[in-house]
């Protein structure tokens, strides 16, 4: 390295103490802010990860065991329900049919009794 003239008066100077104190205080303040920000970020990320894990676990717990029932859409369910939902006319028809059936059965039984010997 080429040699050159070097003077302390040009390279160094005593710094006023107030400047030292202000700058060092600013350094500590900034360091505190950086560390706090880092802690907050860590909290946010770990919280988000925990929330995601909880959501997955909840979803797994709530999964129905009978998939068929859940697969039935509302419309189909309404159709199924409608089958058991009789109107009064339909109910009357059923009752009459039943009476006719049971009535004819009774007649047949009576006829059988008349024709049977010993009566």
């Amino acid at each position, binding site marked *: 390295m080429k040699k050159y003239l070097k003077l302390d008066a040009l390279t160094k100077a*005593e710094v006023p103490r107030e400047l030292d104190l202000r700058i060092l205080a*600013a350094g500590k303040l900034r360091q505190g802010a950086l560390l706090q920000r880092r802690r907050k970020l860590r909290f946010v990320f770990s919280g988000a990860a925990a929330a995601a894990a909880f959501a997955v676990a909840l979803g797994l717990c709530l999964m129905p065991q009978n998939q068929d029932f859940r697969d039935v859409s509302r419309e189909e369910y309404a159709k199924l329900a409608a089958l058991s939902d009789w109107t009064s006319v339909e109910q009357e028809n059923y009752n009459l049919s039943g009476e006719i059936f049971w009535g004819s059965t009774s007649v047949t039984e009576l006829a059988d009794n008349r024709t049977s010997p010993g009566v």
Partner: protein
Amino acid sequence: MSMNKSTETVSDTHLIKAYLNGDGQAFETLYFRYRQQLYGYLSNLLRSSSIDPDDIFEETWLKVIDKLPAYRDEGRFSAWLFRLAHNLFIDQIRKNRNRTFLSTDQEDVPDLPAPEHLQPADVIENRELGEEITRAVQRLSTEQKEVFLLRQQELSFKEIAEIQKCSLNTVLSRMHYAIKNLRIFLAGSRKQIK
């Protein structure tokens, strides 16, 4: 505030990382390592101007503190530090728009030989000589003064070129004329240089 000798061997990059990881002592070590050099540089650079070196000094370190998290180890910390100071100094000049610096016409300066009894490579603590040279440095143009002072801080010409945002040849030229002018100023001084 005193520094431990063991901290002197720790690299600047290591100190910065330690600071960012919460080591309270790290920034103090880094600061004490460079504060006198930076203050000396600014004091000499701004001696003949209306700009207060204290303001630039403090702003420089505040900027360092602010930019440390994004600091990349792409060169020496000292070069980065002086670059920040230079940029703030230029910003202040533009704000003030008051150039009080003297500039010499480089073309007309005659080439005079240096005094033979001046010994290079030694840290000369002779008070009279120091004062003479300090006064002579103030007579240089801003650019020449800056190159000369940064060279005194042991920055390479390449680093100085990055700071001044000019070519290496321009920096070398400025240094050449700075030395030339200093020789003239010193030779023209009436005091005996011992």
